[in-house]
């Protein structure tokens, strides 16, 4: 029938409308689809009962497939109108062919048009709704984010402020209101420029200007502000510039964190690090830094002065009246000192009852003398503390010199030493630093300070001097004497350092060290020479007698060397036993009880206290060298009689007697005649190394007096 016709037509139709509308079909699919529509049309056209609505259906179907172009319709109508009348199958007899064609084409056009109109309206409606929905969603999202922002703004602990580019503040959150004490309304009447703090660095407002001009996007700094109530706050401030999409600056946002508390704490810690809590004066740390500053600056021509103060007898106040009174006293002294000083002068407490005043840019020693006098008179008035009127006296060491000639450490040391000179010179006075005097004191100071380390480094050694039995002519004992082989000063004798060791306290270590060496040597002799080995006599410094561990130490050393206590003699002077302390005597008694020989050294120098000889647990008396001098020929009979009387007395008390300082045969003979037991001195041998004693013991060198006898 018409099938072939239809295929041909559908093909032509496809060619005519392809590309005139967007449909989701390729050419092949399109042709198939149009073939279906063609059949529909042909069927309607040839129907016995003609119904033009077939055309309408086809028009609607086309729009459904998204044939929406007007060109599509035009082409379609023209083709159909041309082709239908020429179909190979004729229309039913009697049919009005032209009328049918016209009606079909007309109704297809109407169907297409109205479907397209519907479709367009639906799509318009849909897109309009989509627009509304999208906008509503965006508004909701914005509202949600604004609500989030608001919540953040109001809840934030951080102060947040918003301002326009002229600096007018437009909003401030509660945290910021709290921080500054302004209400929101008050803030909105403020301009950023009124937030200047007098101590802002110029750079603050420079960077702010750069931000406002859009030259930077943010800055952060610590800045001070004044609160509404006049108080001051420190903030960690970040200001950011907000730009629009085009990048043009639109407004500014400031975030502020109140860091006042942290700053206060820092300041407090800083203060504590540099101040003495009791007196609020500067402390040692501050002194160090201030002096460093003085010396860091340009030094030419500049001079600097120090006063080193120490309160005389402060310890007594503390011990007898208590620390509270002592503290009050220190506070009063501190405030009087502060009043004596002006700008460029720093008063510091160095610790205990020591104070230091640094004076910058002095004109010479005279300036410092004036200050020292002022201090002495300021402290002259008694200090009233808790019902006591305390008279404070102070010793002041003063140094003044060109900055270029010195350094902080030397300066303080000089002031310190000079202060001791003032004290030694009678207290309650000042001493001006004296270069010459200082030199020897500095030397002493250095010796004293390095002594303990020198012991450890093995710079000390022990020599031995023979004590010879005047009756037998045999070696009865040796006295251990200490020497210091100083790396730069050469060999130093005890007279150079024992006093310093006594003063510094290092005599305790040194004494113990000598004792230990001497006992080791005693053991060596004993091992080598048996009963012929000499007693070892070791000096005991007064300070050692106050060491509670003395008895234990001696016991230990003896035990370490397997020595019988009777092989050891300890020499001490009468001064050791002066004073009220019963400790030394108890200790001596114990040592004596153990069998250790106790010798009283240098007897006869200074004053004599004969009763002591009875009271003390002694075994030997050593007559000072001054007796030997008296027995030098031509002999003075009085001296000889005195020596004889002393020897008799000693013997009566069961003590042996050693004559010291025996230098000649004559002296030797006279002591012998006076009944002395032993002699010591150049006549018998100078102090020497242990090997020298070995030689004596081996008989290699005859003892001097033997030769003489």
């Amino acid at each position, binding site marked *: 029938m018409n099938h072939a016709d239809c295929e041909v037509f559908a093909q032509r139709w496809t060619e005519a409308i392809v590309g005139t509308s*967007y449909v*989701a079909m390729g050419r092949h699919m399109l042709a198939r689809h149009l073939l279906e529509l063609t059949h529909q049309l042909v069927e309607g056209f040839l129907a016995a009962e003609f119904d033009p609505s077939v055309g309408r259906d086809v028009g609607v179907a086309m729009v459904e497939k998204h044939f929406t172009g007007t060109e599509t319709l035009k082409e379609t109508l023209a083709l159909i109108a041309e082709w239908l009348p020429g179909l190979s199958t004729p229309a039913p007899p009697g049919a009005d062919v032209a009328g049918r064609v016209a009606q079909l084409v007309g109704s297809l056009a109407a169907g297409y048009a109205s479907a397209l109109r519907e479709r367009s309206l639906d799509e318009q409606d*849909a897109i309009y*709704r*989509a627009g509304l*929905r999208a906008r509503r969603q965006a508004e909701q999202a914005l509202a949600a984010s604004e609500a989030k922002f608001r919540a953040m703004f109001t809840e934030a602990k951080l102060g947040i402020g918003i301002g326009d580019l002229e600096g007018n503040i437009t909003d401030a959150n509660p945290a910021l209101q709290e921080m500054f004490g302004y209400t929101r309304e008050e803030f909105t009447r403020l301009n950023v420029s009124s937030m200047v703090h007098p101590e802002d660095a110029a750079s603050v407002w420079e960077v702010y200007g750069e931000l406002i001009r859009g030259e930077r996007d943010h800055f952060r700094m610590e800045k001070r502000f004044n609160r509404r109530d006049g108080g001051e706050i420190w903030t960690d401030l970040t200001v950011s510039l907000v730009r629009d999409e085009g990048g043009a600056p639109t407004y500014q946002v400031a975030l502020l964190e109140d860091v006042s508390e942290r700053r206060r704490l820092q300041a407090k810690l800083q203060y504590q690090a540099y101040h003495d809590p009791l007196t609020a004066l500067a402390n040692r740390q501050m002194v160090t830094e201030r002096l460093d500053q003085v010396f860091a600056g340009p030094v030419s021509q500049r001079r600097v002065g120090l006063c080193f103060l120490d309160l005389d007898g402060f310890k007594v106040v503390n011990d007898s009246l208590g620390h509270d009174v002592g503290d009050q006293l220190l506070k009063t002294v501190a405030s009087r000192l502060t009043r004596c000083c002006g700008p460029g002068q720093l008063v510091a407490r160095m610790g205990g009852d020591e104070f230091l005043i640094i004076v910058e840019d002095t004109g010479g020693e005279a300036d410092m003398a004036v200050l020292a006098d002022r201090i002495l008179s300021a402290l002259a008035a008694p200090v009233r503390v808790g019902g006591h009127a305390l008279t404070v006296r102070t010793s002041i060491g003063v140094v003044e010199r060109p900055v270029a000639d010195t350094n902080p450490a030397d300066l303080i040391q000089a002031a310190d030493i000079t202060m001791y000179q003032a004290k030694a010179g009678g207290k309650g006075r000042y001493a001006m630093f004296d270069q010459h005097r200082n030199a020897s004191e500095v030397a002493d100071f250095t010796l004293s300070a390095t002594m303990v380390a020198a012991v450890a480094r093995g710079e000390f050694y022990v020599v031995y001097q023979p004590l010879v039995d005047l009756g037998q002519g045999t070696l009865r004992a040796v006295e251990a004497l200490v020497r210091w082989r100083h790396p730069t000063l050469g060999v130093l004798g005890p007279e150079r350092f024992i006093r310093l060791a006594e003063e510094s306290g290092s005599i305790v270590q040194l004494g113990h060290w000598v004792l230990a060496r001497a006992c080791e040597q005693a053991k060596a002799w004993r091992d080598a020479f048996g009963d012929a080995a000499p007693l070892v006599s070791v000096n005991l410094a007064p300070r050692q007698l106050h060491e509670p561990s003395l008895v234990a130490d001696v016991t230990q050393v003896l035990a370490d060397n397997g020595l019988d206590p009777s092989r050891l003699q300890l020499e001490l002077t009468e001064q050791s036993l002066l004073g009220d302390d019963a400790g030394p005597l108890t200790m001596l008694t114990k040592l004596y009880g153990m069998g250790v020989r106790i010798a009283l050294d240098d007897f006869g120098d200074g004053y004599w206290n004969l009763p002591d000889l009875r009271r003390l647990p002694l075994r030997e008396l050593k007559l000072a060298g001054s007796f030997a001098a008296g027995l030098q020929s031509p002999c003075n009979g009085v001296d000889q009689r005195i020596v004889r009387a002393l020897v008799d007395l000693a013997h009566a008390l069961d003590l042996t007697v050693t004559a010291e300082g025996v230098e000649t045969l004559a002296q030797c003979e006279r002591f012998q005649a006076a009944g002395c037991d032993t002699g010591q001195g150049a006549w018998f041998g100078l102090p020497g190394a242990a090997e020298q004693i070995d030689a004596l013991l081996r008989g290699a060198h005859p003892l001097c007096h033997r030769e003489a006898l």
Partner: protein
Amino acid sequence: MERSSWASDDVDIEHASPARVYDYYLGGSHNFAVDRQMARQAIELWPELPLIMQANRAFLRRSVRYLVSQGITQFLDIGSGIPTEGNVHEVAQTAAPEARVVYVDVDPVAAAHSRAILAGNQYADVVQADLRDVTAIFDNPRARRLLDPTQPIGVLMVAMLHFVPDEAGPASIVGQYRKMMPLGSHLVLSHATHEGRPDQAGSHTDLYRRAGAPLTMRSRLQVETLFDGFDLVAPGVVFLPLWRPDSPADVDDHPERFTGFAAVGRRG
């Protein structure tokens, strides 16, 4: 965070939108007067535009069917535009009824309309996002519901990347997607080019630039570079009608007149 969530003025119907202008080219009425005005202007300057867009849609259909034939049943269609005849889910689901499609468009109106169209569709959904927010897209719950990250996926950027300027680094953006695509995944891409009709390109891009939706047309070489890390499926980067046409009859005598490049790459 979604890029658009802070701005309210991104729902803008006072200005023409590429999505709605495109709909007009395709004979749709999902558009407003501004869109139509711009589209008419564009067509006046370049009467073949509607045909080019049809060719683009035809490529889209063919590529989806090709992907399904390669066993891909999940699609991420980025820059999907306004739904119209022959949407990706329709094409895919005709071939594989359980195919899943996630549409992504930055245009809020397009996204809202897509959502309305897809209401009740179990296997398709839409995410409003910018192509550049790669992780935001993959992490979006709507996408996570439909896409299985362990299975190959078809990522479509059809007539979309020419809206991404060089400064935004289109190649590196594509690279980010590649990292998210399991082996066997495919990238479908069509892209405007000046190479077919150098005479038309200038006035057309000017018009889009003035409308606030600048276009960057790219050369074949540039389009090929976008496939770094993918194996181009035959016939490679070609003018739209030349990509695996359904029949030779569908190919015009002057395919270069359809001045867009089409290509599909496989991540192997």
